[in-house]
């Protein structure tokens, strides 16, 4: 995949000067860090675990508090002004997500808790309503547990087949094998956009084309892509797209399921309760239209508003700029880490974004992470909730450094120094 194909619009020519990475777009992680209070409270912190959860800018933290202070009331029910104001803010957040994904219709945006809940919603609502025993759901070896287990639960419940498309020896999706795994019974392809354990970019446009050609719907798990790439669900052509708020610099507890309106309209409710009904009697209940049909009970109003503020923050930085920054810094990280003897980057040769996952010969990931922590470098160690992939790669775990808008080359340099220290300490 070329860089250009990741972009919604062609990148504009860079201005003459710039700071930080020198991309010339004025993107300066050092200065940006001042917008994230966590760094004021932890001045030595080198935070390289944004793939697990990103830090929050002041606008999100303060905006959520401000909402509780000034505009809070329950949504969609009060006739008093405060409730109307709260409802407006909540629905404004939906509009922001609508634009963030370039969805065709705001009703295609369902607020959920996180990516995991989004995928479970599809598995539990769309699955039993539209699949029959023997139908197939096709995933890949790159998936993390939340795009594996919901389908296993569905398999155990209604007898679908769960088919797994393999990776090639370099750790990328094997497109030929994927194509071969598509069968007339394939009803859904559920695949990650960027693999969380290795950072490998999946050519999802191609996946959607191939799947649609065989009459299958496609769900994309955008957990790692939404913070890093411009996402255009219409251009992608996918039927479902899931992402979580806390990885896009928003609050925890809020996530998004995008689903094409015709698909969503054919789906029965996921959970029952208030908000999702039109009329209830003890004999019969009429359900709301999407998206409210899928938002039973009082939603995470402040979370949705916080997510909207996080989207404002991202759009203000510019998603092309963020992509430039992540690409540049990922490239720098690959170069820098590759020079460390005994260090093996996972998915070498694969196109990757924002995630550097590695094995350090003879040193267990937890020992690496422990030494890194002593150097104030925060990374993730272990199987990254993608056990099948890690085992497939012949490992029990890796050390994973992942990037955010606040990271710069100096962070990568400090990571490298800390890895060298770990190597010296444990080398046989």
């Amino acid at each position, binding site marked *: 995949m070329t860089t250009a194909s990741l972009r919604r619009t062609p990148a504009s020519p860079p201005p003459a000067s710039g700071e930080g990475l020198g991309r010339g777009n004025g993107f300066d992680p050092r200065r940006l860090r001042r917008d994230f209070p966590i760094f004021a409270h932890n001045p030595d912190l080198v935070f390289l675990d944004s793939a697990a959860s990103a830090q929050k800018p002041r606008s999100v933290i303060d905006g959520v508090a401000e909402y509780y202070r000034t505009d809070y009331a329950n949504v969609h029910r009060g006739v008093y002004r405060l409730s109307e104001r709260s409802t407006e803010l909540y629905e404004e957040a939906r509009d922001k997500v609508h634009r963030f994904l370039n969805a065709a219709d705001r009703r295609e945006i369902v607020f959920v808790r996180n990516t995991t809940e989004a995928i479970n919603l599809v598995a539990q609502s769309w699955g039993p309503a539209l699949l029959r025993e023997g139908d197939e759901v096709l995933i890949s070896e790159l998936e993390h547990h939340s795009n594996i287990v919901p389908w296993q639960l569905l398999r155990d419940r209604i007898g679908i087949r769960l088919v797994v498309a393999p990776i090639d020896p370099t750790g990328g999706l094997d497109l030929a094998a994927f194509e071969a795994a598509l069968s007339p019974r394939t009803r859904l392809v559920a695949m990650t956009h960027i693999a969380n354990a290795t950072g490998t970019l999946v050519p999802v446009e191609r996946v959607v084309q191939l799947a649609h050609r065989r009459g299958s719907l496609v769900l994309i798990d955008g957990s790692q892509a939404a913070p890093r790439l411009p996402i255009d669900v219409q251009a992608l052509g996918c039927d479902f797209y899931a992402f979580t708020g806390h990885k896009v610099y928003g609050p925890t507890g809020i996530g998004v399921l995008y689903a094409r309106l015709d698909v969503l309209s054919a789906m029965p409710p996921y959970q029952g309760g208030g908000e999702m009904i039109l009329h209830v009697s003890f004999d019969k209940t009429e359900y709301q239209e999407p998206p409210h049909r899928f938002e039973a009970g009082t939603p995470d109003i402040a979370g949705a508003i916080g997510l909207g503020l996080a989207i404002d923050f991202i759009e203000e930085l510019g998603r092309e700029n963020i992509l430039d920054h992540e690409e540049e810094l990922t490239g720098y990280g690959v170069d820098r880490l590759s020079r460390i003897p005994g260090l093996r980057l996972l998915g070498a040769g694969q196109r990757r974004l924002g995630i550097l996952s590695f094995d350090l010969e003879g040193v*267990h990931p937890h*020992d690496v992470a422990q030494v890194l922590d*002593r150097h104030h470098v925060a990374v993730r160690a*272990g199987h990254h909730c993608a056990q099948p992939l890690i085992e497939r790669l012949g490992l*029990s775990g890796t050390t994973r450094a992942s990037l955010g808008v606040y990271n710069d080359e100096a962070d990568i340099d400090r990571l490298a120094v800390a890895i060298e220290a770990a190597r010296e300490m444990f080398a*046989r």
Partner: protein
Amino acid sequence: MMDLRELYQDIILDHGRRPRNFRTIEHPTHFAQGYNPLCGDRVTIYLTLDGDRITDISFQGRGCAISTAAASLMTEILRGKTIGDARALFAQFHVRVTGGEPTEALAEPLAEEMERLEPLTGVKAYPARVKCATLSWHALEAALSGRDGSTVKTE
């Protein structure tokens, strides 16, 4: 870096690099697997018991420096001990690595062995690493309880 060396003392680095009794026993009388779901690490403990005496003990598996060193030291210490000795040591060890003070003193020969485990008690300052130090002991307990071939989790 001083405090990190309290966690990774020389004896731990040494046993982590060159684990002792790192082998299988062809026909063990008892064995069990320990599994830490947090990191995916596994260790298998093999035992040969003669009555209630441990005549041979070994381990296999993949783990961090601390879990490897803990298993290695455990196998060194427990060869020739009785099941009762092993359980008394584990009880005392467990209290020490979780930051407590043992209420009962161990008998003299066992107290000396306990001192050999002292370097591992550095994990008490690192809650996430306590399980690394105790994984092999939990597997040992599973094997001794007759849960042969079973997998015990640290959770």
